[in-house]
């Protein structure tokens, strides 16, 4: 399918909102791909981290917010520490997750954890995963 490209008000607003929430300048990215090359979970992703930021640059809001990638980021900051332009992609991912409608729907919530597992999990992992993936 051909993606229709347009940078209108809506797209600009999306880009602005992502930049504002994340504090990251998406225009800095020159697509070297280093984030994807080092990402420990890129093999599971439908869109590589560099593609996410590229699509934000292009204003492809729908593609971005429907991507599985947003829920594969472990905030390990490998990309951030090696990015030649100093972009913090973990912040970008978190910002995009916040923009997803409808608000209030958990991508991953308490009901998704089996009881048996819940008993052996360390507290911090539960706090962390809810903080990241539930609203």
């Amino acid at each position: 399918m051909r993606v229709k490209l347009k940078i209108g008000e809506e797209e600009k607003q999306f880009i602005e909102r992502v930049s504002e929430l994340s504090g990251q300048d998406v225009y800095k990215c020159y697509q070297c791909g280093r984030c994807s090359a080092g990402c420990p979970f890129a093999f599971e992703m439908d869109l590589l981290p560099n593609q996410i930021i590229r699509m934000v640059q292009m204003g492809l809001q729908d593609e971005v917010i429907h991507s599985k990638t947003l829920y594969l980021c472990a905030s390990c900051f490998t990309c951030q520490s090696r990015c030649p332009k100093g972009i913090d992609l973990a912040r970008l991912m978190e910002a995009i997750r916040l923009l997803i409608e409808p608000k209030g729907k958990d991508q991953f919530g308490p009901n998704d954890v089996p009881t048996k597992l819940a008993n052996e999990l360390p507290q911090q992992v539960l706090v962390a995963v809810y903080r990241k993936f539930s609203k």
Partner: protein
Amino acid sequence: MKLHYYPGCTLKEKTTNLDDSTRAAMEVLGYELVEPENWTCCGAEFPLTEEKIVGLAAPTRILRQVELEGGDKVVTTCAFCFNVLKRTNEALLKDPLKHKRINAYLRDDIKIDPLTKKKTTDFAEYHETVWVLHLMEFIKYQIGYDKVKSHIKRDLANLKVAPYYGCRLLRPAGEVGIDIPDDPHIFEEFLENIGCEVVDFPFKQECCGSYISVSLPDAASEASYQILRSARYCGADMLALSCPLCYYNLDRRQDRIKERFFDFTGMPILFFTQLLALALGVDEKVLGLDQHYYDPRPVLSKMHKTEVVS
């Protein structure tokens, strides 16, 4: 000497071995660890967007408590807690407006005395006087390796240990790192100085899967497997680390890794404080070595039991 120490929630529940070994080792080194009164969870994850600023309130409260108790530094062993506390401190330091906003939350705190039911309000602000340190930093910069060495009672020279940093001790770069993210040495130095044989391996700063192990367990076990495989390939007997979550993924989840990767035979995972306590001659019974999924005791039996004359 008294020292403020923030254990964090997991150390009180699932990884008491990290807490116990820390206390025992620090006692040998002459420190009494004091927990800030009424401490809460730090939040585990540092809030990454400006909209979630309220997430900074909990860690700031902990820091304020240390400040109120007259502490100028707080030491943590859990990598997550260290990460959150240190970044919170830095964020407030860098951004006076944020600092003000968080202090506004803190001032409005309410405390109800369980006995008298009296409400206390109008709490103090946090003044940015606390220094957040990871125990490994505290040992290097405040205690000094020479002092540690002078207390060593057991020879660990036969233990081939791979230091595993994971993400939270080193990254984000420029914000938190206890060392250079892609060329760290502090863990190696620590292990060397307590007498272990250090095994360098290329996955030492790779991510173990973190909280992805709950939402997408298979992906996380693959990440964990790669780390353990590499450490084994490089000749390590065991992996040393500082993060209860990495410990969970790398030790407790070895059952899952074994199911997926047939060549995997298992490897003991130890907290760096357990090794420290062992070197300092602490009684093994205190260290919770029986809590591990992969029992480290057979491998640990390689160390010389004889006391070192120091």
